[in-house]
């Protein structure tokens, strides 16, 4: 299978994530869309790594994974802080965003 297909898939996923961020209003869902974008990037990186014939891309994917994880932690903690202030632990109330 041609690596270009992977690139297309990655672009598609990235686009889906972008649209999701722009369209959805629930903080957690938006956040998940961002993660989708990051993972689409990983796919690109690995594919390019294959195309270019060096391992840099895979190493970068690792970095991205780590960063994504750190983002998850920070994001969740901020969202949790909001829940605490509002005295609710439900994810469903995370509709503060009106940007």
């Amino acid at each position, binding site marked *: 299978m041609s690596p270009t297909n992977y690139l297309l898939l990655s672009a598609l996923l990235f686009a889906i994530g972008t649209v999701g961020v722009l369209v959805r209003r629930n903080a957690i869902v938006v956040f998940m869309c961002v993660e989708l974008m990051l993972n689409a990037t990983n796919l690109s990186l690995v594919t390019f790594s294959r195309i270019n014939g060096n391992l840099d891309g895979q190493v970068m994917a690792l970095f991205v*994974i780590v960063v994504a*994880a750190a983002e*998850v932690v920070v994001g969740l903690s901020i969202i*949790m802080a909001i829940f605490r202030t509002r005295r609710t*632990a439900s994810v469903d109330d995370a509709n503060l965003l009106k940007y």
Partner: protein
Amino acid sequence: MPGSTGLTAYIPLIVMFVLAAGFAVFSVTSAPFIGPRRYNRAKLDSYECGIEPSPQPVVGGGRVPVAYYLTAMMFILFDVELVFLYPYVLNIDALGLFGLAAVLVFLVPILIAYAYEWRRGGLDWS
């Protein structure tokens, strides 16, 4: 080279997956046909030890206690740590002292953060 076999090495895994999936899906789909069907309103309510179920908001919409989020966050951090340790230990001999120092520079802050978490009660299940 271990990796030279490429993706063909995964074929057995896929076969295994297909077999297991087939088995599981068959079980799940066949169950309603094999078993009897005797309608009873109470059976279809969610189970709350026999008492009348308290109204639930939505499917899966129950409240998730904050502590689970905390655990999830901690897991992510340490899991990522593992991601880095596996490649390191595989090449521990090649990386030598400098590699060890680098990994320690990586691990010690994590341990300090871990100690912070511990002291602040982040590891206590409340």
